[in-house]
């Protein structure tokens, strides 16, 4: 087939039409993305509004996260904010979920004047990867994390099965996802305890 024949062929027309449609579509989307994109600040403000039901002022402390503890055995701390009511708000991601996926939560923790953990005030779902059963986790599941603060303040962590060292919170049938959810909470807890003690906390 010569070049001239190819240019007159149906195959060339198909390629040309598809390419043109794809180029126009991507150009249009690029322009609209600039106009309609939601900034990180706006997303944080939305998250705070969804947690408190109203706008609350905050200071972004993400840049000052201690990298040594931000990534830990339970997961990682993606963002950290100090709210105007004194509470610390983490965006915390727990690992070891279903198929190795993760669950991210907004975790609001109250700390005392020394920076020691006092209580979990609010826990709200943020996002997940690969967790097909996340729809089974209602807000009531996350509210459980705010009612055993005494036990947690003594030094325990959350787990899917209860023992002396751990407090349990499990959604039946979604054990692996429950583990990732617990890990997201534990990651925030680990960070708080170890930043305060310089890595001595367990």
């Amino acid at each position, binding site marked *: 087939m010569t070049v001239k024949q190819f240019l007159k062929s149906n195959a060339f027309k198909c390629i040309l039409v598809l390419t043109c449609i794809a180029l126009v579509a991507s150009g249009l989307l690029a322009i609209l993305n600039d106009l309609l994109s*939601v900034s990180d600040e706006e997303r944080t403000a939305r998250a705070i509004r969804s947690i408190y039901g109203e706008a609350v002022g905050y200071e972004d402390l993400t840049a000052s996260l201690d990298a040594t503890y931000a990534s830990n055995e339970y997961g990682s701390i993606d963002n950290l904010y100090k709210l105007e009511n004194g509470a610390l708000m983490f965006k915390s991601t727990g690992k070891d979920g279903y198929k190795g996926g993760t669950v991210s939560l907004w975790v609001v923790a109250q700390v005392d004047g020394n920076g020691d953990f006092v209580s979990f005030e609010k826990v709200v779902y943020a996002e997940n990867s690969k967790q097909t059963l996340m729809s089974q986790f209602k807000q009531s599941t996350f509210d459980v994390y705010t009612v055993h603060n005494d036990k947690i303040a003594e030094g325990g962590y959350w787990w899917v099965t209860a023992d002396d060292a751990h407090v349990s919170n499990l959604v039946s049938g979604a054990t692996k996802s429950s583990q990732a959810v617990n890990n997201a909470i534990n990651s925030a807890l680990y960070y708080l305890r170890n930043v305060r003690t310089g890595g001595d906390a367990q």
Partner: protein
Amino acid sequence: MMNAKRFRNISLDGVLRNNPTLRLVLGTCPTLALSTSAMNGIGMGLAVTFILICSNALISLLRKVIPAAVRIPAYVIIIATFVTIVRMVLDKFIPSLYESMGVYLPLIVVNCIILGRAESFASKNPVLDSACDGLFTGLGFTWALTLIGIVREVLGSGAIFGKELWNFRIEFFGSAAGAFFVYGLMIAIFDGVYRSIETSMRRKKFYRQADAVLAGCGDASMIDDCARRDRAEATATETHTEEN
């Protein structure tokens, strides 16, 4: 230009006769997943309507340019573009609806209602007809989804459009099984009502034709001629009376 009869046919097809949800049972996945509340139903319905109008119009406009061999990939690119635009707009201006629609919003790209109308209507008809078809098919999808959403929200959450009505609620209607149950019930009710109206209209037409035949108008095809003749005779009689 579209005439009134064609417009009437397209609108009735989309909203009632070929209702995508209750007659053709298309778009079942979002119907079951997003009919937990009336607001979700309206939101999904309007998103699909917007995408249907835009994609139908554009596909119709390009129908002579797009080669048959690549028509499906071309349709998917066009539909995906509009779906992405809707996602951006919802994320920016109605984040709560964007969150509640979740994965079903991007899945509109492969919604069989949209691909079906592109393939069976927009690729063969002019732009205005195709846009109208998109509008009315979308409205048919919207009202069906909203109705299912209202039933499930009232029975499953004791609320309507987010406003609490009473404390009584049956959890079953909020579940997937409840969605199938209400959907099946709606199809049965719609089909029953549709068939009874259709039968009644056919019966009326039959009696009209039979009366015409008995009145000496010959076979049914001559009914219009008979009617015209009767009107002409009546006019002539009135004129004659006035003259006298």
